């Protein structure tokens, strides 16, 4: 066990964990930030996506010891009041079904919009590879376009 101090959602949080513990489980088990989801454990499904210094990191394969000073933003910190344009678009278009994968989808989408404020369908295809078994992809695509519109008319 080692002590780590991590920057999560704008706060410095200290945790004690084995160095190989994936950030995902540190978030969920140590910090009770359970919005980041476990889906596959091998970086395939994207349910565990967090924002790490602006990149869409799949936290199930990122050991806590490798996080360092990089800033972690989880779904709980995507916006202060749950009103990020993506969150609003997701609500407006009633995107979710079971809802389980959506926090990862949102975190992937938010990093996409940072680098690409008005993504094309092709760019959405390339960036959004998270799995949703309920099949909400069609609405996710529409919601990303809607959020981009919200962002760009702000």
């Amino acid at each position, binding site marked *: 066990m080692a002590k780590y101090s991590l920057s999560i959602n704008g706060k410095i949080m200290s945790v004690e964990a084995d160095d190989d513990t994936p950030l995902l489980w540190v978030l969920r088990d140590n910090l009770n930030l359970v919005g980041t989801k476990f889906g596959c*454990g*091998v970086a395939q499904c994207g349910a565990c996506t967090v924002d790490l210094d602006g990149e869409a990191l799949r936290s199930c394969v990122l050991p806590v010891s490798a996080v360092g000073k990089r800033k972690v933003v989880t779904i709980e910190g995507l916006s202060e009041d749950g009103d990020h344009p993506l969150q609003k678009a997701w*609500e407006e278009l009633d995107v979710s*079904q079971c809802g*389980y994968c959506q926090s990862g989808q949102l975190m992937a989408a938010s990093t996409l919009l940072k680098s690409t404020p008005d993504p094309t369908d092709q760019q959405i295809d390339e960036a959004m590879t998270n*799995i949703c*078994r309920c099949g909400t992809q*069609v609405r996710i695509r529409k919601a990303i376009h809607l959020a981009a519109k919200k962002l760009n008319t702000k």
Partner: protein
Amino acid sequence: MDFMNSRRNFLKVSALTGGGILFGLVFPSFETNDASTALADYMPNIYIKIKPDGKIVLMAPNPEIGQGVKTSLPIIIAEELGVDWKKIEVELAPLDNRYGRQTAGGSGAIRGRYADLRKMGAAAREMFVNAAAQIWSVSAADCIADDGMVIHKSSEKKLSYGELASKAVTMQIPANPTLKDPKDFKYIGTRITDVDVHSIVTGKPLFGIDTRRKGMLFAMIARSPAYGKTLGNVDDTKARKVNGVKNVIKLKNSVAVLATSTWAAKKGRDALVIQWNTTGKLENSSDHFAGFKEILEKGPTTVGRNDGDVEIAKQKATKVLDVYYEIPTLSHCQMEPLNFFADVRDGKVELYGPTQVPDQLRNDVAEKLGINKDNITVGVPRQGGGFGRKLMTDNGVEAALVSAAAQSPVQVQWTREDDMQNDFYRPAEMYRYRAALTANELLAWHQSAVGIGRGIRGDSYVAGAMVNYRSDSQGFNSNTPTGWWRAPGACTMAYVAESFFDEICLELKKDPVAFRLDFFKKAKDAPVGRVGYDPTKYKAVVELVAKMSNWGTTPDGVYRGFATWFSFGSYAAQVVEVKLEDGKPRVTKVYCAVYCGRVINLSGAENQIQGAIVDGINHAMFPKVTFVDGAVQETNFNTYNFLRMYDAPLDIEVKFVESDEAPTGLGEPALPPIAAALGNAIFAATGKRLRRLPFAGQL
């Protein structure tokens, strides 16, 4: 929960913790639709709760697995009750027999409850109105109820339901409440957003996996790596040395490691040294298919339906189309890997986690632990998908056993590999379809099926419209477990039957839409034997989708496929459009027409259809499970390929046939036809008839 403690006093005002009011109502049984039977004879129930601030809480009685019933069931109550949807709260009901069938499966929640929930809401509304009328000493007929208020029309006096609650519960329960005229519906049929969407997009703890309790240990379980192998010697020395591991428990055929975190439990579990003994047959998928083929070629099969004489028709035919279709084993892969929380101490059991059948789970745990059902509670959180996996109770039972042995609250967490290697799979199947043809006529249809555990369980719509029709099947013995998978039976049979129908259309040079309409006409005008569907409704969806897609005028570079299917009470017809990108088909658009009676929540209903279509495309295209020596080869998404955004249709247009009839199933019916519609479109684009799922490797 507060309202659980007041089982005997529903018809009185019950003080809630904090000064609220519990308003109990009666709920008619599910065995009868006869409203004239005295409602008071039924078991009282609790669907509606009024809080001190007048806030109304509606209970959603069925498990929410993504099918939207946590939203749509309360909509029905709210509609008749006459409350403002924006001001209500919704809670998922815990397991309680007074709620009747609390199952998520068979697309049954709405169709099973629609009539009863309306009646219940209407009865409550009438009681509020009667209460207000009595207080004001006016006629109830002069009062109306809306947005949680009763209003006296002429004086415009108003009282809220909250204010009326204590009086209302003393009113006589209306035996036959007047239902709203559907013309006056405010919510039913409109677009209403999922009640949990804000919690979902802000990452609130909604799911079983999010359960965190004081003193709870995290557990992972080592299970057999192959079907046919059982637990032998266990050496847990290394596992116990893993930092955070608290306990190792040997179960009948598995070993649980309990620890202070999920990761420690996983490391401990992976550090177990276990000898697995081969005690059964170690099966191979290749042997399954070889066995299927042999039965289909040589028999025996059991006849399910036999109209006319297909053999004579085959002799008369100028051509007999005789083809085999292959369906692989599939895993469920709901996004939330299985888990369950259990606390078994002092003869009491608390269970909380993902299950589609809480009642069955309680029975199974009662039996396994020898604990009376009354001492077992089951809480059901929102679930990260179901698709039939959690119609099995193994995850909950296992957690209870671990907790009982450890004498500690535990959360058992499955990895994706655990999930995929310990599933109740959609069974592998093989079909042989034969059609007796002349140059322009289909003389006979003969379908045969073999699958692990079972064969064909239904008829397609050609039955009832064919003079010569035969359906036979055979089960195949295997020790690989099978279960229900979204739209069981229909999901594979529709693919085969509707692809085969397309093959016949090609042979006879018939338009796939027009030719199907011929069948519905025959089934209506001159039915042959039992007709297990409504030809008029089938016709309606086929015509609607043809209109939506402007069938017959395919744009350049676009290839189309058509299919239709009836299942779980509803009809779906689909047109799939593909384009070729680097020679490979990509689905660009899907049109879908649905006949499902009255739509409750338009947004949720469309979402189910769109989702079922994407889900169906995914499973037609990509994944399969292969057994080698009893072991599953595809244990995670790196080899169990799944659809991503770039494989999803760009747009899915959904229309519902307008109907005043009671709602029918919606979670499943749009899935069965899509594989065939896609396969038919791929055939149009590439000339390849794909008779084996999944498609991707063959393109």
